[in-house]
Each structure stands twice: as C-alpha cells, then as structure tokens.
C-alpha cells in the first residue's frame, strides 16, 4: 500500500517534468542574439581562442568572481564545522 | 551510425551503474559504482561535444566526490562498532 503510493507519486512527478520538457527542441534555443554576438566578436575582443574561457573570464568576469568567493566561503564553513571533532592530542591541529 | 551505437552503450551504462549504486549493500562498492557513473557521464558529455563540462565532471565527479565518499566511509563505523 505504502510502496504503491510512493510509486504513484514518483510516476506523477516524473510525468509532470517530462511533459514540461516535451515541447523543448534540442539544439535550437529561442533567443540567440547574445550567442551570435559572442561567437562573432569573442575572439578579437577577448583575445582567447577558446570562446568558453573568453566568456567566463571576460564577458562574465563577475560570475567567476562570485564563484571564487563561494568556494572561499565553502572552505571557511567546512573549517568551522570540522574544527574540534578530533582528539586533543591529534598531531594535526588545523586552525 | 557508430556514434549512435556509442551513445546507446553509454546511456545503457549510465542506467546500469545508477542501478548498481542503489543495489549495492557494501558502501565502498556503492561509492565506486558512483564513480563509474560519473566517468560514463563525462564520456557522454564528451560525445555531446562539451569538453569543458567533461573535464569538470571527470575531475569533480569521478575524482573528488568518490574520494570524499571513501574518506567518509573510512571515518565512520559499521553497526558492529568496528571501524572499517
């Protein structure tokens, strides 16, 4: 009974997500103005042959800065969570 | 044709390895199966011509996440109380 309920909920949720994705076409996005501009001008404006790196580090530099900050914050949080769980006589006092 | 065959093999491997993650009783085996899942997923990204995502998936998913799982399993105890 309970497992039947679970499977029913799973099927309904999966059907909902699949229905939402059915009318999307693969490889032909709706709005391509920004992509066309970057593909046409990215190489001369950023000076890098790899357009992905040019977008990530030049056009979208603030996103990369935020990503680096997130990583820094993750390390700070992990250091806080794990700080005193080891024994006192541990040879590796991290902080 | 050969490309379609590789796609079908990779996707079947993805489903099989995801099923193995759920099926395994031993935690280390499940972690290794999850690493195999990430590796196959990175190969699928490579087949879809996204090499950046493939490298990131191979490094983070197949390398670091599996290592985090293995380290965590080494650090915890089984029901019997003996550390693995």
């Amino acid at each position, binding site marked *: 009974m309970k497992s039947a309920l679970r499977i029913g909920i799973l099927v309904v949720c999966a059907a909902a997500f699949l229905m939402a994705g059915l009318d999307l076409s693969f490889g032909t996005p709706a709005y391509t103005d920004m992509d066309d501009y970057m593909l046409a001008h990215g190489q001369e404006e*950023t000076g890098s042959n790899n357009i992905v790196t040019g977008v990530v580090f030049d056009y979208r530099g603030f996103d990369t800065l935020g990503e680096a900050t997130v990583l820094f914050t993750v390390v700070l949080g992990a250091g806080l969570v794990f700080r005193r769980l080891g024994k006192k006589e541990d040879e590796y006092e991290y902080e | 044709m050969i490309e379609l065959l590789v796609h079908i093999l990779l996707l079947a491997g993805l489903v099989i390895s995801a099923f193995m993650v759920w099926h395994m009783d031993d935690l280390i085996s499940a972690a290794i199966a999850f690493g195999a899942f990430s590796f196959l997923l990175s190969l699928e990204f490579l087949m879809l011509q996204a090499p950046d995502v493939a490298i990131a998936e191979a490094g983070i998913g197949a390398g670091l996440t599996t290592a985090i799982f293995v380290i965590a399993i080494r650090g915890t105890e089984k029901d019997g109380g003996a550390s693995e």
Partner: protein
Amino acid sequence: MNMSNLVRSGANIMMPFILVYGFYIVVHGHLTPGGGFQGGAVIATAVVLLMVAYSRADVFASIPKNVLKNSETAGLLLFIGTALLALTAGIAFFGNWLLGAGSLFGTPVAFGINPGDINTGGIIPILNIAVGIEVLGAMGILLLVMLGGMKGDAE
C-alpha cells in the same frame, strides 16, 4: 589505515602524470578546452589520490600545513588584484588591460581558425592561473579538514 601496497604503488606512479595534465589544462586554458576551475580540480584529484592511498599520519606529515591555505588566499588575491589593476589603466573593472599591449600575454590574436599562440589572451591566462591555484587550495583544504575532523584510526 594504509591501503594495500598495490594501491600505494599505483598512486605513486599516477600522481606526476595527473599533476602535469592539470597544470597543462590551467596554463592552456585560453587555447584548449578547460580552464582554471577544471585544471585546479584535476590537480586537487592528485592530492586526493595521496589522501586515499596513505594513512592519516603520512598525509599530514607529507602535505605542509600552510601551503594549501596560502595558495587559496593567494589565488583569490591575484584574481581580484588583476581585475583591480584595470582601473589604473583607465578601463572598467575586469577590463582586459593587457590585450594587444605587446608585453606578457599581449600578442594580438589572429582572427579565425589558427593553431594558437600561448602568448595571447591578455589577462585571461593570469586569471586562469589565479583560479587554478585557488581551486587547488580550496579542494585540498576541504578534504584535509574533513580528514582531520575524523576520529583516529582504529588500528
């Protein structure tokens, strides 16, 4: 808890190749697929391989305490500093102030399909290296802290 002898020998053999591959991805980030984040993750994989293969005491003895912490901080500082230096050149924050200047990484890039020259890209290779060492330090510290927070080995 040491892993078996086979695992340790395999880790010793694999580690230099993984390191070289990671540094290649970081340095060639503006020419080939990859970049700072991916390369840093690959280098961190080499450090993690060491952690999985050896025991806690060996890992803590062989990886210096402050190197990873300092590399993370230095990476973030280099990133923000390079972006800030664009203000002194008179263009916006994150502007590409080295592009076409003729100095380090300043060769103008040829348009179209070309074999690629590592001396191009302006500040993009510098930002790649900064993000690379930051990701390396962050991932290494994350796993070292998790490893250090565990209870001691049973044996």
